[in-house]
């Protein structure tokens, strides 16, 4: 071979010619997304995040199904995705035990499964993406202790205490304020609901003349507490902190100056699509992805919040 460089050039040219139509060809992937229920704004946001991320990739089609808080229906949705021959399944399961068998069956058939937010049992899935409520609660506790200078009275309005997020946001917070002089003077279960939070806060206001801060397990709870304090003319004498930080909810309350801070509980929608693309391209992804979370205050809202150190 007298002219090796010419041969290389030819090969590259040939390869390019062969590869061109292949890359131009729109490889359409279909992703099935099973949401356990769309009754919560946070889950509506999760679907919106997935849609937004997927819309940036014309080769992706996402089919959304809403199980309306029904384990059996959600299991049936997974089976339907398998039969429809989707290329990948994203599932945010309602409960672990009842949804493990359908997810396992799909995974065993060779369909990659990304599990979002809540878990399934065992190891038969490709990747789990979720945030850590305990860590967020701990960060909130530490942040509040710093804000109040290590002493003060707190009202804690808890999410549903029979649910794991409620338990973790409570336990994490207690760890976060441990060792400080903060004192929880009133706590009540408001079951994630704003009207309940308002009623419980009214009781706290009736009993305690001095409250420094209200820590609510979600932003609607913090907002309900704010409304109660405002009705009593005491909203200026205390601060309000919530969790979730949805753009149109917690972040907006922070922007309006109602909440001192809102801690983000990320939906993982964007990350699910990013990892789905990697999986579909044949790249290995970590089995466990813990989402990082941000704190939004009036000062950092414009710059996209501040990332919490892990």
């Amino acid at each position, binding site marked *: 071979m007298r002219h090796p460089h010419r041969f290389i050039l030819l090969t590259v040219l040939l390869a390019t010619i062969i590869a061109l139509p292949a890359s131009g060809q729109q490889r359409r992937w279909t992703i099935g997304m099973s949401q356990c229920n*769309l009754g919560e704004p946070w889950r509506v946001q999760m679907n919106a995040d997935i849609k937004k991320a997927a819309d940036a990739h014309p080769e992706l089609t996402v089919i959304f199904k809403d199980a309306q808080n029904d384990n059996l229906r959600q299991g049936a949705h997974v089976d339907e995705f398998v039969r429809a021959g989707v290329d990948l399944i994203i599932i945010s399961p309602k409960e672990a035990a009842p949804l493990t068998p359908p997810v396992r069956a799909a995974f065993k058939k060779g369909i990659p499964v990304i599990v979002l937010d809540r878990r399934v049992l065992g190891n038969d899935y490709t990747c789990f993406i979720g945030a850590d409520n305990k860590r967020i609660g701990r960060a909130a506790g530490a942040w509040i202790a710093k804000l109040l200078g290590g002493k003060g009275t707190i009202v804690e309005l808890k999410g549903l205490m029979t649910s794991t997020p409620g338990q973790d946001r409570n336990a994490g917070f207690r760890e976060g304020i441990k060792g400080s002089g903060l004192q929880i003077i009133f706590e009540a279960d408001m079951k994630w609901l704003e009207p309940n939070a308002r009623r419980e806060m009214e009781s706290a206001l*009736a009993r305690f003349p001095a409250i420094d801060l209200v820590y609510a397990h979600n932003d609607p709870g913090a907002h309900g507490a704010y*409304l109660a304090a405002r*009705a009593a003319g005491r909203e200026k004498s205390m601060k309000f902190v919530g969790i979730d930080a949805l*753009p149109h*909810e917690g*972040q*907006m309350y922070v922007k309006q100056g109602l909440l001192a801070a809102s801690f983000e509980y990320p939906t993982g929608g964007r990350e699910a699509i990013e990892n789905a693309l990697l999986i579909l391209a044949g790249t290995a992804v970590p089995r466990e992805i813990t989402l990082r979370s941000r704190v939004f205050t009036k000062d950092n809202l414009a710059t996209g919040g501040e990332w919490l150190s892990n």
Partner: protein
Amino acid sequence: MASASNHPVIRALLSLALVLAVGALFHADGAFFQWDTHRDMLRGVSVFGILACGMTLVIIAGGIDLSVGSILGACAVVFSLLSIHQGLPAAIAIALTLLLGTACGVVSGSVIARFRVQPFIATLAMMVFARGLAKFISGGQKISTAVQIPDGSYSYVEIPPVFDMIGARIAGDNIAVVTLVMLLSMAVCGILLARTTWGRQIFAVGGNEEAARYAGIPVGATKVLAYGLSGLFCAVAGICQAAQELQGDPEAGSTYELSAIAMVVIGGTGLQGGRGSIWLTLLGVLIIGYLEKILSINAVGEEMRLMLTGVIILGAVLLQRNR
């Protein structure tokens, strides 16, 4: 058996006195003796009390309305959408919302009267439909002062003054506007039931439908009116709910129908129909309201609250039973 203790109003007052006695005993460092506590309790039960007005009419007419919570949600969303996002004048937004609520009730009533569908089933269908409507109109999001602009980000609009007006307190900060709305609703119901022909007809239809028919009472129209008014009160409650939350939540009012029914029944209006009064319902509203308030100011845990509430509801109903 005409002894005073057999009168339903006396029995309801007895239950209320018992609950109040518990409150005086467990007063939570004196919180129970502050007027603010009572004022806040009244504010808290107002939306339920307004729903209970319509529920009382329907129950006296021999029916039941499971759709009140969902219609409340749909109306809260529509009212918020019209007044916050569309910027319509308050009067028009209120009128259109009242129209929507009434229409929902009239549909239920017509289905029950015309097609002889059981009230439980017909209003169950409306309950599911209206919740769907609330979610459809709102796109699953709360309708608040955060308005999404086409690029996906949010801008912030001012809350219309009507929200602050309805959510406010008057008379030297001593009573919530929504509480006055509840009392006004009850007065309207009271006059309607006690002083009008239609009121007598509703008792007649609930007491014995066949007899009412033979007596020439327009049974179908009476039922449509009862459910239509129930829908109207749902709309009033929805507007009050939205005004207090400063937003229209498509999930608003979930399970409120159960509280409304409990309030009516604890007051002493029997589910068999043909008997009862709005004043009994007012007592029922106060009994449940005080019960929740006392448990709340004492920061009683959720488990104990549910168990105690169950026991006390049963006790109150047993006390109300005709002997």
